[in-house]
C-alpha cells in the first residue's frame, strides 16, 4: 500500500518536474505557460492576499447548491421510480442516452428564459448531476435483499418508513457513489457555464484572464479548481472505500 502511494507520488512529482524542465528550457514558452513553481507561488500569493475570494465563494456556493438540490431530488426521484416498473422501463432509454447529450447546449436557452444570473448555471449543474444520482439510487435499491423488504412488511412499515429506515440505509455505499458523481457533475456544470457566459465566478475570471493574457491570474485559478475538485473526489472515494471495507465488500 505504501509502495503504491510512493509510486503515485513519484508519478505526480515526475510530471511536475518534466513541466518545470520543459518551461525552463524554453520548449514551452512563457506566453503559453509559466513554470510550475511560478504558478505555485502565484497561487500562494493569491490566497494570502485574499484575491478572488468573493468569486471563489460564489462559484463554490453555486456548486454546493446545485449538488444539494440534485442529490436530494435524485434520491427522492430514484426511490419513487423504483416502485413504478413501467415508468422506469419507459425512462430507461433516456437514462442510458442522457450523458451523450451535450447538456451545455441548453445553457443559451436557460439564459434566454431565466436571464444571465446564477439560476441557469445552477440549473445546468442540477441537470448534469441529477440523472447520475437517480441511476445510482435505482442500482442500489435493486440490490436490497428480499428478506429486508419482508422484515419491513412484517413490521408494518409504510413505504416512507421502509425507505428511510431499511432500504436507503442499506444503499449507503451507493448513495456515497452518487454523491461523488453528483459533486463532480455539479462542478463541471457550474464552472463550465461560468466559462461559456457569465458576469462573475471562477470560470468567468479564468476566461477573462485568458482574454487579457493574464497568465499570473489564469494559471493559479485553474490550478485551484483542479485541486478543489480532485480533493473533493479523493475525500469521497476514501469514505466510500472505508464504508465498503466495513461491510466486507471490495
Amino acid at each position: 500500500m505504501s509502495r503504491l502511494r510512493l509510486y503515485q507520488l513519484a508519478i505526480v512529482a515526475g510530471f511536475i518536474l518534466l513541466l518545470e524542465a520543459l518551461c525552463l528550457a524554453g520548449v514551452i514558452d512563457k506566453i503559453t505557460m509559466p513554470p510550475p513553481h511560478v504558478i505555485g507561488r502565484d497561487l500562494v500569493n493569491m490566497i494570502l492576499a485574499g484575491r478572488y475570494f468573493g468569486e471563489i465563494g460564489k462559484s463554490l456556493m453555486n456548486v454546493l447548491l446545485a449538488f444539494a438540490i440534485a442529490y436530494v431530488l435524485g434520491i427522492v426521484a430514484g426511490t419513487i421510480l423504483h416502485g413504478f416498473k413501467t415508468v422506469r422501463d419507459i425512462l430507461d432509454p433516456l437514462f442510458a442516452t442522457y450523458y451523450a447529450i451535450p447538456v451545455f447546449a441548453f445553457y443559451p436557452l436557460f439564459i434566454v428564459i431565466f436571464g444571465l444570473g446564477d439560476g441557469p448555471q445552477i440549473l445546468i449543474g442540477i441537470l448534469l448531476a441529477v440523472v447520475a444520482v437517480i441511476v445510482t439510487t435505482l442500482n442500489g435499491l435493486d440490490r436490497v435483499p428480499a428478506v429486508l423488504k419482508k422484515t419491513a412488511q412484517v413490521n408494518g412499515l409504510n413505504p416512507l418508513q421502509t425507505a428511510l429506515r431499511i432500504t436507503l440505509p442499506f444503499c449507503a455505499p451507493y448513495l456515497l457513489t452518487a454523491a461523488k458523481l453528483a459533486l463532480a457533475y455539479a462542478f463541471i456544470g457550474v464552472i463550465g457555464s461560468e466559462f461559456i457566459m457569465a458576469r462573475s465566478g471562477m470560470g468567468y475570471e479564468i476566461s477573462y484572464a485568458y482574454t487579457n493574457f493574464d497568465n499570473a491570474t489564469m494559471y493559479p485559478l485553474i490550478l485551484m479548481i483542479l485541486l478543489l475538485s480532485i480533493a473533493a473526489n479523493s475525500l469521497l472515494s476514501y469514505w466510500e472505500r472505508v464504508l465498503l471495507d466495513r461491510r466486507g465488500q471490495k
Partner: protein
Amino acid sequence: MEKEERAQLRNMIILILGLFLFWELAHLLVGDVALRSPRQTMQFLGGLMRTDVFWLHLADTLKAFAVALAIAVALGLLIGFALGLHRLSGDAMEPMLVALYSIPKITLYPIILLAFGVGISAKIAFGAIHGIIPVALFTLGAIRTIKPILIKTGRVLKLNPADMVRGILFPAAVPEIFTGIRVGFSLTLIGTVLGEMFAAQRGLGYLLMNAISLYNIDLIMAVTFLLVVLAASVNALLLAIDRRLHHG
C-alpha cells in the same frame, strides 16, 4: 425475446412522444419570447438545411470530431493496455485517472488554446482529452478481469506479447472496450462542440454561440435540437451493439 423487443420499442416511442409533449407544454408556458414549438423548430431546421453554410459548419464539426475520436480511442487503448498489463502501474494510475476524469476539463481550455492556437487543432485536442480517459479506464478494467486461464493458455503456447494482445487479450476484452468507446464517443462529441463554443470560427458550436450573441432563438433551438438528436441516435445505436456484445 421478440416480445421483449416489442416492449422496448413501445417504451421508446412513448418516451419520445412524452419528451415532445413536454417541449410543447414548455413552449405554451414560456411563450415565443424564449422558446419555439417543436413544429417551428423543425421548419426552421428544414430551412437551415437548405443553406450551404450550414453544411460547411456541420462538416467542420464532424471532421474535428472524427480526428478527435480516432486520437482518443488510439491513446485510450494504448494507455489501457499498458496499465492493464503491468499490475503496479495499473493500481497506481487507476485512482489518478478517475480523479482526472472528474475534473471540469473546461478549465483546461485556455491552456489548450494557448498551446494549439485558435482553430481546428484546439477543437480536436479538446475533444480528445474528453474521450481518452473513459476509453483507458474501461480497457484497463477489461484486461484486469480477463480470466487468468486465458492468459495462462497464451503463456503455455509461448505467444509473444504482440500475439498475446492480438490473439487473446483483445478478443476477450472487446465487449468492455466497446463500452469504453461508446462512452468516449459521447464525451468526445461534447468536448468538440464545447471547444467550438469558445473559440472557433466554424462548426455547430460556433453557430450556437453566434446565435446566442444575436439572440436568435430559432437558430439556438434548431442547433440544440440537431445536436441532441445526433448524439442520442448514435448513442442508441452503439448501446444496441454494446448489449449484443455483452450477451451474444
